[in-house]
């Protein structure tokens, strides 16, 4: 349970980090808060030759309102964002989900972008990013690009991030004025990864449900409003489309059940908090 040897570079500037990632390619991993990466290193599921610590980089430690969205830099820790004044008003879904991310003892160090980079299919932050239609901002020595959250996650801990790219920030559109949001998850114990997590965004004309922990990535879908009798069938179809699997924690059938029940519950809750 100790990491295999690696070099460690404390990057002071973005340029320094990008140069190191460029030179090392697949051999390097970005280290931010370390709350997803360190377990992987300790269990030797990852054996990088180089860790590039990006936490000293001042430019990555910014949270900013940018064109109706919240831009969260790669150096922002989960606990720091949780304490941001006005978060529940601008980002009610994120504010509702953050207390479910790990424990207080890991949120103190873990970053939002780190959780996105890790791309665990049951993690809360990637789910919120997909539910809100957010973006991932990637940068390498060759340039920068922006990827929609739904295209970023491609499978179990797999993303479209290229070898030498790093996540520089994520952006989440602010909640629309007449919209309601809700988040719920079911796990064995508080702080465990979710067996199933559901996030809903509802406005006057549309409803959107995102589900984590069932498919190999977080998946969002537009659904009928909770008042529409068509919702029942749509939820049923959504639940089956996620191709749930049995594992140690729950059966596929239980996960489908949770998508139907938890899905309806968050949609109703989101619709109710609009009113």
């Amino acid at each position, binding site marked *: *349970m*100790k*990491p*295999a*040897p*690696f*070099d*460690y*570079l*404390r*990057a*002071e500037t973005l340029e320094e980090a990008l140069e*190191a990632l460029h030179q090392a390619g697949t051999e390097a991993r970005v*280290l931010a808060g*370390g*709350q997803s990466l*360190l*377990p992987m*290193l*300790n*269990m030797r599921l990852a054996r990088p*030759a*180089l*860790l590039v*610590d990006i*936490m000293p980089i001042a430019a990555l430690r910014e949270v900013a309102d940018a064109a109706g969205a919240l831009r969260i830099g790669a150096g922002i820790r989960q*606990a720091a964002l949780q304490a941001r004044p006005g978060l529940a008003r601008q980002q009610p879904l994120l504010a509702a989900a953050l*207390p479910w991310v*790990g*424990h*207080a*003892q*890991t949120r*103190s*160090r873990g970053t939002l972008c780190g959780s996105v980079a890790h791309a665990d299919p049951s993690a809360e932050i990637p789910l919120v990013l997909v539910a809100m239609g957010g973006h991932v901002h990637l940068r390498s020595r060759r340039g920068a690009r922006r990827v929609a959250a739904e295209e970023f996650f491609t499978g179990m801990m797999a993303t479209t991030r290229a070898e030498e790219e790093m996540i520089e920030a994520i952006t989440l559109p602010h909640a629309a004025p007449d919209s309601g949001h809700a988040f719920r998850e079911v796990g064995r*114990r*508080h*702080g465990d990864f979710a067996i199933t997590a559901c996030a809903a965004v509802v406005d006057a004309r549309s409803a959107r449900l995102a589900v984590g922990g069932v498919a190999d990535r977080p998946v969002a879908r537009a659904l009928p409003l909770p008042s529409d009798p068509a919702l029942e069938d749509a939820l049923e179809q959504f639940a089956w489309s996620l191709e749930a699997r049995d594992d140690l924690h729950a059966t596929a059938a239980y996960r489908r059940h949770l998508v139907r029940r938890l899905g309806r519950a968050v949609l109703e809750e989101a619709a109710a908090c609009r009113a």
Partner: protein
Amino acid sequence: MPRLKAGQRHWLHLTLNGKAVEGEAEPRLLLSDFLRYELGATGTHVGCEHGVCGACTVQIDGAPARACLTLAVQMEGAAIRTVEGLAPAPDRLSILQEAFREHHGLQCGFCTPGILMSLDAFLREHRRPNEAALREVLSGHLCRCTGYAPILRAALAAAERLAKEAGDA
């Protein structure tokens, strides 16, 4: 900063329980092992080494964190507080420690240092915590002995004592 080479030991400077300390660490050395083997501070316990059990919880710059999910080399210049730093004097327990003793908040004591460090940080910021909030803090720790109820009682008692001492009881 130069790249720290794998397999070589590098000097680190940090503060442990208010005192400036230094020690050597390979890049892959975990903070938990650095504390125990390099600095000799064995009060911090190690259980799972992947962030689940909470035994290794220390305070880094005031916030509770897992020492097993932190590299020693990340701690250059940081202020670490461990269970050794809680007692005000060698022959006196802190209010929180005293409450654990009174309310049987520990049996084997394996989980205790981590739980104390989480609760100490929490009680500093929450003068009048409710039981639900304390349960939430404890959810980050596993205890195989007590069943948690005595720990909860100890934490509530400590909170009350601390509030009284601060004069806002």
